[in-house]
């Protein structure tokens, strides 16, 4: 019993160690937040590019690039992507959050692209036809009619993607960043008692994600109540 209290003390109280966890959590959330924003932007652009077709039915070059991007990102481990970004592409950068956000943003973008594609495909084809029959271009109809509906369709999956992203950032320790996971790991190495720090980190992740899930569910319900379909 005593030793549990002792372990707790050494994991969280000594030297105000608990502040380190929250600093780590701060990094985790920061990276996830910027990556999510980047992911939505890149994902939307990549999705539209990937779905683009010429009048003759063939894909333009940029469409192939988007296709390759989505394919490669989804077909390689996130850790490798992160290490390539860190040790190769941006090896001169000292801004860890920037590099990690970029890497995770590019990673998430590929998944977001597929989520949005699903959202677009779930929009009735008649919506595009109606827009086109009025003389609106494909792009205009996409912008004003199809995409707003597609985002709404994709909303639950996008929130899910954000939660996945938040958990995936746990690997940034690989490139030396002090996120929540790495902090917990460092403290357990220091104290030779991994139980408390790791379980503590797990609890913090869980609580944050639980709170987010509840908020997201509320948001989703609100959106559905105001459903104009």
């Amino acid at each position: 019993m005593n030793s549990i209290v002792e372990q707790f003390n050494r994991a969280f109280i000594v030297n105000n160690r608990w502040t380190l966890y929250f600093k780590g959590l701060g990094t985790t959330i920061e990276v996830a937040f910027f990556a999510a924003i980047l992911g939505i932007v890149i994902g939307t652009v990549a999705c539209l590019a990937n779905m683009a077709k010429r009048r003759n039915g063939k894909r333009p070059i940029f469409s192939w690039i988007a296709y390759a991007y989505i394919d490669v990102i989804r077909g390689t481990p996130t850790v490798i992507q992160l290490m390539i970004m860190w040790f190769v592409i941006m090896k001169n950068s000292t801004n860890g959050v920037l590099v990690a956000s970029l890497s995770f943003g590019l990673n998430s973008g590929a998944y977001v692209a597929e989520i949005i594609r699903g959202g677009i495909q779930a929009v009735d084809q008649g919506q595009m036809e109606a827009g086109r029959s009025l003389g609106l271009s494909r792009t205009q109809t996409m912008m004003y009619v199809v995409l707003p509906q597609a985002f709404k369709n994709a909303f639950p999956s996008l929130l899910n993607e954000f939660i996945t992203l938040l958990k995936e950032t746990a690997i940034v320790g690989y490139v030396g960043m002090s996120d929540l996971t790495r902090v917990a790991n460092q403290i357990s190495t220091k104290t030779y008692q991994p139980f408390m720090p790791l379980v503590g980190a797990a609890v913090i992740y869980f609580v944050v994600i639980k709170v987010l899930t509840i908020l997201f569910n509320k948001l989703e319900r609100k959106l559905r109540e105001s459903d104009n379909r």
Partner: protein
Amino acid sequence: MNTQNKAADQDRVMIRVKNLTKYFDDNHVLRGINYEIRKGQKIVLVGPSGCGKSTFLRCLDMLEVPTSGEVWLDDVQVNSPKTDINKVRQKMGMVFQHFNLFANLTIMQNITLAPVKLKLMSQEEASEKALKLLRRVNLEDKADAYPHSLSGGQQQRIAIVRSLEMNPEVMLFDEPTSALDPEMVGEVLQVMTELADEGMTMVCVTHEMAFARQVASKVIFIDEGVIKEEAEPEEFFTHPKDPRLRDFLSKVLK
């Protein structure tokens, strides 16, 4: 315009279809359709399910791309790669079986989106015109509603209004009443009849034979990818010549 010119304008060929064919992969749906539609005419298309009525109609405004042949609107070849199809479509309204109102927009936004985004009208002009049209179909109180809150009949009337807002030269209807509950068919047909009376050029796929009799200038029977018969409604329904048309009519008129 003197009377002679006016008469000539009334007789002007508006849509000209030459040797139109359409394949879906190996499915040879349209096998050479030739037809001319004059300004102010109301053409009703009938034929068995799957004979290509929708395909023909959709080829007129390039929602389907013809495999070969020509479609002309006035002096513009609609299916030429050089033609700006969006410009052509502004002059051709299309009403769909399933209404296809924009689900994310209010009725007013549905009606004004195209003319405003295409910079044909200011938002004020577009809204004003929309209100006038909505009043005509007795739906002005629905301006701020969303499509899902309206009945099928109301949605279809709005869809017609949305097309009319663009001041089209011709209106295409693809089974506009087929998805409606029976009690709502009348309200939509009434709007279409009024439109016909005002002189709108119309091409209409429908199973409403009474409407065809009352409104059509010509009725066309499409079968096996070609126009098998064309006649004025009285002649078409009382003295059908083509045996397959007789067979078809005996089924639909019961």
